Structures are given as C-alpha cells and as structure tokens.
C-alpha cells in the first residue's frame, strides 16, 4: 500500500497507525500523529487503519518562536 508520510510517498505493509509508528522506529510517546489532517491520539493509533493514499503526519518537538 502506498501512503503519504510527512509529505513523501511511502510503501508500507502496515495496516494501522500504531504499527507504522513502531516500524519506523519511533517510540510511541515521543511523537504526535495525524491522518488526513486530523489528530490521532496515541491511544487511538492501533484503532486507526491506514488506507491507500492516506496522508500520515508524524511530528516531534522542535525549536520555535
């Protein structure tokens, strides 16, 4: 399945957001996630299926003004 991850195309076999986060090597509580522009809470990732063409955002802390 091809999805958009942080604006770039990605082929993945993971069916839900929690598995995708883990597969990418992120610690679950060190990133925040959204699918198709909507926030997905950490506790809801395992119940959030990934679909062909969906847009996943995985964000981490950064400097800001």
């Amino acid at each position, binding site marked *: 399945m091809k999805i958009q991850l*942080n*604006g770039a195309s990605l082929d993945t076999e993971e069916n839900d957001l929690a598995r995708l986060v883990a597969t*990418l*090597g*992120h610690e679950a509580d*060190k*990133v*925040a*996630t*959204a699918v198709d*522009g*909507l*926030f997905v*809470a*950490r506790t809801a990732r395992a119940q959030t299926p990934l679909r062909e063409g969906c847009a996943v*955002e*995985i*964000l*981490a*802390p*950064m*400097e*800001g*003004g």
Partner: protein
Amino acid sequence: MTIQQAAPAKSFPPTNPSGKELSLYGNEIPSRFLIGSAQYPSPAILLDAIAASRAGIVTVSLRREAGKDAGKDGAGQQFWSLIQQSGARLLPNTAGCKTVKEAVNTAHMARELFATRWIKLEVIGEDDTLQPDVFALVEAARILCAEGFQVFPYTTDDLVVADKLLAAGCEVLMPWGSPIGSGRGLNNPFALRALRAHFPDTTLIVDAGIGLPSQAAQAMELGYDAILLNTAVAKAGDPVAMASAFAQAIEAGHAAFKAGAIEARDMACPSTPVLGSPFWHGDGSQ
C-alpha cells in the same frame, strides 16, 4: 574635612518591584520575559541564552520527524532532551498554520507531545507580514478554549479582535509589536496604549517584532505584562549577552511603569526652583 563613606547600594529585587508576579492562567511566573528557542547558532548557546534571559517560559514547536531507519532521525528527540535541561516551562506554538483546522489539530498534537494545555495560537493570514488571520484566530481560539486549552493568541493590536478573543475564553492576549522577525519594535504605540487602557485587567504580552532592549522597555513602560521574543536574541552577534540585556530592559521598563512616569508636555518646565533665584535671573535689565 572628612569624606563619608557611601552607604551600601540598596538591594532591589530582580523582577516585579510591585511584588506581584506575572500570572498566566493562574500560574505565577517569576519572570516577565518569554523567550523563543529557534535560530540559535548552537544548542549550547540556546541553553546559555535561556539562562541569561532568566525567562521562565520557552516557546517550542513541532516538526516532521523522519523515521529512525532513514538514518537521519533524532533531531526532534535531541531537541526535546536539550530543552528539558533549561528547566523552563514550555509554551508550544502552532507556527505555520493558516487555517482553523490546521491550528486546532496542531494544538492537539502539541498538547499530547508536550503534556500541557498551554498553546501559543498562531493562524497566519498573510505571508509577507506574517500577520494573523484574526477571523480564523478567533474561531480557533473559541474551539480550543472550549476543549480545555489555555490559549495564548498571537494577534494584532485591534481592540475588537481582542474583545472577541476574550469572549472566546482567552485570559491572555499577545498583540504584535510589528511583523515577526522584523526588529522594528512597536509600530503603533498608540494602539498598544489603547489596548492596555481598554483591558486593564487582562494579561497582555507583546509578541513579535521587538529588535532592541529599548523597544522591550518601551512596551513594558506602557504597562504591558511581559515580552515574548526570539529573533532579536537568537540572531544577535552575542545571543547570551543580548538575552541578558533584554532581561534588564524588561525589568527596568516594568519598574518604570510601576513607579509612575510623568506626563509628556510641549513646553519646558524648569526643574530648578525659581524661588530665591540670584540677581542675574531677575528682570533682564542690565
């Protein structure tokens, strides 16, 4: 004749001569300086600048995080570890958001990641000035306040917008001094003075556009409660020294406001008493 030794200098507290601390959503903050964490030459200089600023609050943001398997990850976690060393309370922002939906969802992500209900709400409406889209800002503020966020809206100096943000549930307003990163200082002191006068009991923080310590002092002399800035420190030749300079200016400006400034006037008024002037100050006759 003997020369008397000068009395030891009186010791003044470093901040808040009134004894009243900055209050943000019920939290007493022992500094009136909020500092941004972006654009510093190095992580070490960032930490030193935060320490020199004596700021109790540091703004942060969110970024896309590459997968660790991609071999270029870790920036986000490295920053997270670094900023925690500062000991400052974090104020995440929604920088870069241009719609209500983006801002609201970014705020939710920030709340989960930083474990705080505080959010510096930015909804940008124009790219050249980074001016807030105040219509979207008010709507996003209304949604987030209803959801339990404690919103710090980055806004203009417009009185009507300010009133609507307060009605939406904001307890703090952050009007701009001038466009973000411009260093122009207070573009419209009249409007900022009017805002202060119109909302005497609201916590008002000048956010954005400050370039010099004197400009920060000017805002504090107007009665503003605090200053939020980033670029003027981070891009200075010596960010640590500049952070210290801003800290002193903010304290001085606040002390001056509490002390009560004189009214400006058009004509001169002699500071030396005229009663008992010697003869050469008489009637002008030779």
